[in-house]
């Protein structure tokens, strides 16, 4: 076998290996939101968000079922689903975006890398551009993705009845903290 062929072959194998581990995912992603309000803080956690990250392109996607948000308070959970997010009509929230500085993350070397993410966030049937800063931690065979950003409730056409307007904050802080495992 000529050297050229061997080198080509080696590259092919390398390319194959790298494709196999390009995609990282989870189906039990942790996403929570928090809103500070004079009367009562509003807080809920989602433990079944689906997330896929393509480390080669930096493309990042999240999808979650609105009804999957768990509240401490039952009444709040009902209002959230029925009045504010109308989860029967709009069952999902979605994010499709990109790690802008994907090239600076060395997915092959353990460590914590700061990232900037930009993309389209769809909640309550409304899609808006969002930007966020976060980190990608490379550890073991997997990744941990974290980020936190604030969105204005009014952006997503979520109507807050005037009766409780002063009791509910106008912005919501969303926190993502999720492990990702290699796909297959």
């Amino acid at each position, binding site marked *: 076998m000529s050297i050229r062929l061997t080198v080509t072959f080696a590259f092919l194998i390398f390319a194959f290996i790298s494709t196999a581990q390009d995609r990282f*995912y989870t*189906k*039990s992603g*942790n996403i929570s939101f928090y809103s500070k309000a004079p009367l*009562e803080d509003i807080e809920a956690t989602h*433990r*079944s968000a*689906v997330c*896929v990250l393509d480390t080669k392109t930096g493309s990042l*996607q999240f*999808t979650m*079922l*609105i*009804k*999957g948000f*768990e*509240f*401490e*308070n*039952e*009444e709040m*959970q009902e209002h959230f*689903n029925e009045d504010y997010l109308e989860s*029967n009509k709009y*069952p*999902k929230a979605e994010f499709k975006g990109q790690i802008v500085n994907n090239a600076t993350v060395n997915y092959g070397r353990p460590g914590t890398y700061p990232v900037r993410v930009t993309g389209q966030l769809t909640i309550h049937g409304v899609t808006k551009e969002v930007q966020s800063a976060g980190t990608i931690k490379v550890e073991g065979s997997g990744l941990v993705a974290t980020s936190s950003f604030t969105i204005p409730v009014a952006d997503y056409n979520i109507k807050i009845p005037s009766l409780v307007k002063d009791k509910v904050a106008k912005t919501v802080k969303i926190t993502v903290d999720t*492990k990702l495992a290699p*796909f297959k």
Partner: protein
Amino acid sequence: MKRFVTIVVLLVLIAAGVYAYRMYTGKVKSLEDADADATVTAIDLVAAFEKDSATANKQYLGKIVAVTGNIKSIEKESGSIVLGEEASMSSVRCSLDTNFVKKIAGLNLGNQITIKGACTGFNADELGLGSDVVLNRCVIPANKN
């Protein structure tokens, strides 16, 4: 008569007070003692959503569903149990009520189990990861035998 009116008014006020108090402090109840709205196998539940998600949503979304199936995987960290056929990409994902997460230790892969949870919807296979019906606040009912 006057006395009667006073008593009625007082009772109404107390009831309103209790209601208001409950509104602000009412914790989400455990599904442990709740009756299931539907009983179905994991395979049938997935099939129903894959066939026609609009109809399945009407039937199951937001309802308390008792699902029976084989344990396909157990995710200790997130407290989830995945039910369904080993060979299929589709599953029923059950996110456990935090009080039941410790019960994971006693479960074995491949065994049949019945899990009761609130159906939060269906994630169609948009990302190439297989589709899933998702339940949360899941409890594992004790064996009645």
